[in-house]
């Protein structure tokens, strides 16, 4: 694979339960490569390890085994972080700030100049449809508005690579369509996109490649084109359900 920007090698994570000191393996031997400009969707049931994978790649968590490299640098490296954007699942922001103030804050964390921050905040609030609410405190935002603002802040530094965790969560159908348009625009510009989602039609429409996770393991990776044009599956949902059913039938041990 040419110009790999995300590389996970045997990435594994164990957590210790605080009460019984029992070790729980939440991610096992994740091997994954994502090329520059690719859009990769990670799908799987709740608790499959999708969010953990992203957190390990961003350096929010440290792996028990294995390693991840982002843009050729170890996970969590500040130089790599300067070039990526991240939207957490169900984002919570500082409710005392307005949307514009929050974008300015996010820009400052990247060391962006004041003038550029102000311009970016203007562009991005327009991009995500929050122009009118830009000067309203976030405590008055709906879930969908917070999600849109989360998307905006993840783009403040013009990232080469974005990690979005459930970007469509909390959005109505119009919002979802808007996010798909943003994703298409980013793809056109060559941004590498890695996202988790439960909404398979959106993944199908936007992604070049998908990975299916179940019980902390990446069980299959496939080009979306092959799934839809191969003839074996009706659509991505059909593929997903069959892959999960096979994995369960194959006795993937519950941790």
């Amino acid at each position, binding site marked *: 694979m040419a110009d790999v920007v995300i590389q996970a090698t045997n990435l594994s994570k164990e*957590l210790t339960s605080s009460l019984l000191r029992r070790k729980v393996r939440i991610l096992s031997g994740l091997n994954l490569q994502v090329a520059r400009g690719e859009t990769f969707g990670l799908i799987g049931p709740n608790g499959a390890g999708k969010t953990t994978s992203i*957190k390990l790649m*961003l*350096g*929010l*968590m*440290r792996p028990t085994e294995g390693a991840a490299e982002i843009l050729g640098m170890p996970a969590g490296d*500040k*130089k790599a*972080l*300067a*070039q*990526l954007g*991240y939207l*957490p699942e169900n*984002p*919570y*922001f*500082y409710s*005392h*700030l307005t949307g514009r*103030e929050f974008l300015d*804050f*996010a820009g*400052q*964390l*990247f*060391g*962006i*100049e004041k003038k*550029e921050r102000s311009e970016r905040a203007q*562009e*991005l609030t*327009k*991009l*995500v*449809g*929050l122009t009118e609410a830009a000067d309203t405190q976030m405590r008055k935002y709906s879930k969908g508005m917070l999600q*849109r603002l989360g998307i905006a*802040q993840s*783009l403040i*530094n*013009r*990232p*080469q690579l974005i*990690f979005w965790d459930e970007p469509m969560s909390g959005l109505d159908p119009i*919002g979802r*369509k*808007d*996010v798909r*348009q*943003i994703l298409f*625009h*980013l793809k056109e*510009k*060559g*941004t590498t996109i890695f996202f988790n989602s439960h909404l398979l039609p959106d993944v199908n429409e936007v992604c070049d490649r998908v990975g299916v996770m179940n019980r902390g393991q990446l069980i299959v990776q496939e080009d979306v084109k092959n799934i839809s044009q191969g003839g074996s599956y009706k659509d991505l949902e059909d593929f997903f359900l069959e892959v999960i059913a096979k994995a369960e039938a194959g006795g993937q041990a519950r941790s």
Partner: protein
Amino acid sequence: MTGNSGNIDGKQAGPKVFEPVWAIALNTFRETVRDRILYALILFAAIVTVLGIVLGSLSVGQDIRILKDIGLAAISFIGGIIAVFAGTNLVYKEVERRTIYLIFTKPVSGWQFVLGKYIGLCLCVAVMVAAMGAFLIFVITAASGSAGFAEQLRQMGQELALIYLELLFVTALATFFSTFSTPVMSVLFTLAIWLAGHLGDSLFELGKLTQNPVISQFLSVIFYCLPDFAGLTRIRGHLLYGTVPGIEVLTYLVTYVFAYVLMLLVLAAIVTERKEYT
């Protein structure tokens, strides 16, 4: 959201070391001010005004002195409450609300985060102390007339500076505990050390009195490890009687406070950097 898709491609801005510190400080300042600080100010203003009126009506000659003592104690107490309660939530709340994900997925180090949070809260406490101090000076001037106003201002300024120095210390303690402990435990730890720091001299004296060398050694180790809040109180006592301590005492005091604060912030940064955000 549709239409103009903005410029979301291209070049990367290089981070500057103190830009994130300042951003986090300003955000913390705004959050503290917008959340709770006004209530404390109103409470203080109410206490001092009522005291001013009551003591003014008694007119026994000592009213200004009592008003000043109570006012300064109230500033120290309310400033302490803000430092302890806001400080102990400082880092913990960011983790609980998961806003920390948004910080540490940007090019921000643990020390920048901790320093930013600390400076933000210290700014907030500074504004509080200055506002309450100004109000107290106003009430005292209104009660005593303009005679000796400059002297009053100088004395009050010195005492307020010492109170603020102590609050810097307390804020650093609270910030340190908030990096690894729940707010309730952090409040208990901070208050315990604050109180023990005021009793440091007594511990030292107790160590000298005891016959047991192990206990004596133990107490003197504790004395040297605890922050010397008693030293700050001693100097405030001198100021109350109009004695200004020498420059070497003040230099030592400021250096001591900043060295202790620096040590606490370094420890807090190490804890924050090593922590996992699950």
